[in-house]
């Protein structure tokens, strides 16, 4: 009952007022991101790792390798074999999930791998394998995008050469408006959802998935909004790397001490 009342209010308010005063269920403006926190180098064992929180969402990513390829027949003689596993913890959602990978997990593992492969200089590591593990500890909408953002941080942390960082952000349509970074609720009730990942410096789109229904105009509005969101998150990615380098003290800049 409460939610219905809230919705009516929202709808009534939106009609009468200027667009910038319209607020989303969580109080955000249409082009506002949820609070986002990114951290680099959080695990001991992995060659590279990253942790992030976006709204309620919590994701941990680890990168192992490069190592030899297993299974052997997946070896590429001229490039890197990348393994990517996107997985949601059984306790990450309202109802317990079975720990076995779902069809969604399998699809997302594939599109995330492909998005990251666009950036990694795979030809530098023939006959080698790199493993990327993305564990969603708590789901809250937009996990594939945050997963990609974190995976690229973990890859940078592992020293894997890349053309660019990769950063993901979602956009969509909720109650007739194009909005940035959908929450779980907006995702469920919205009219359309679009996941985008880009290489921000090279200006390339490496992941694009959409469902729901959008006119051509709305489609590009959403795409441009998602790209704008990616650019903002990219700045936070760079800051997270710099924070990691400064960690363990040293406010002094690197100097000419070496040789």
């Amino acid at each position, binding site marked *: 009952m409460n939610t219905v009342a809230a919705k009516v209010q929202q709808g009534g308010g939106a009609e009468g007022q200027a667009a910038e005063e319209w607020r989303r269920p969580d109080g955000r403006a249409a082009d506002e991101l949820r609070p986002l926190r990114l951290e680099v180098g959080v695990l*001991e064992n992995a060659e590279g790792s990253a942790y992030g929180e976006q709204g309620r969402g919590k994701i941990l990513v680890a990168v192992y390798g490069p190592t030899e390829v297993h299974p052997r027949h997946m070896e590429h003689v001229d490039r890197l074999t990348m393994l990517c596993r996107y997985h949601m913890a059984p306790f990450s959602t309202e109802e317990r999930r079975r720990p076995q990978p779902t069809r969604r997990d399998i699809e997302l593992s594939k599109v995330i791998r492909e998005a990251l492969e666009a*950036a990694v200089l795979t030809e530098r590591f023939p006959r080698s394998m790199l493993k990327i593990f993305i564990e969603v500890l708590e789901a809250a909408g937009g996990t594939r995008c945050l997963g990609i953002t974190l995976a690229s941080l973990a890859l940078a942390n592992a*020293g894997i050469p890349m*053309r660019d*960082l990769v950063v993901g952000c979602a956009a969509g349509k909720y109650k007739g408006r194009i909005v940035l970074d959908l929450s779980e609720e907006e995702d469920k009730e919205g009219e359309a959802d679009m996941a985008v990942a880009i290489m921000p410096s090279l200006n390339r789109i490496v992941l694009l998935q959409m469902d729901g229904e959008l006119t051509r105009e709305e489609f590009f509005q959403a795409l441009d909004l998602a790209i704008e969101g990616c650019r903002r998150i990219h700045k936070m990615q760079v800051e997270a790397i710099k924070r990691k*380098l400064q960690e*363990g003290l040293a406010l002094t800049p*690197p100097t000419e001490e070496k040789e």
Partner: protein
Amino acid sequence: MSQPSTPSERILVVPGDQLPVTAAKIDHETIFRENEQYYSTVVGLFEQRQNRANVVRLFGPYTPKVGDVVVGIIIDEVLLGWKVDINAARPALLPFTNVPSRSKLSIGDVIVAEVADYGVSRGVVLNMREKRARTGRRKTRRRQTKKTRTKGRRLGRVTRGFLVAIQPSKLPRLIGRGGSMISAIKRGLNRDIIVGENGYLVLRTESLRKRQIFERIIRIIEAQAHTTGLTERVIKLLSESLSSFSLEHSSGESATGRGSGGASR
């Protein structure tokens, strides 16, 4: 051209950052070119000197170079030789022909060898013979005299000591300018240290306590590699831990497991 070349300036960069490259020689491991623009592929410090541009990595694995002296662990025996873990993307091959006949090797042995040949697709070939490698290239000796750390270093099997790994990107800091840091540590511990350029180190001691101190120092160097005054701090720490060492030692403290080695990055 508009960018004045300031050879000593080092800029912190991340993958995808555009680099103001003016140098003619470019390190293609760390710099990538597209549409006449240069970008960093790694997190590191961009520098240009003597007409050469590169990014000194701050994160990352060991990238082999011909002539490197590395510490390796034998992990398998294959048709033509030994497979050796050298902390790189793939194991190296140590052909039987590059092993001195007196050396009896087996799986699990720790060895010191030289990178005789390296190709991105064929991988690393090692040599353990003191005199020039059979399968190697001609110029392998050149780098040997470059630094004190490898001078007079004997290739071969390591029969005693502790093996410790440092992040390869932090190795230059362990050496220090002109070898200052590593010599200080050797002096402080009064032990020899074999430094593999792949980041595997062997401290020649049987003292568990010295190993713990050494490992702690390594972790500190890793965490603080980009800071100034690190050598001084390490020397101070060494003398402190060694003095407390004699106390603890007399009070009969026994080291447990990996102990202080866990002092994290």
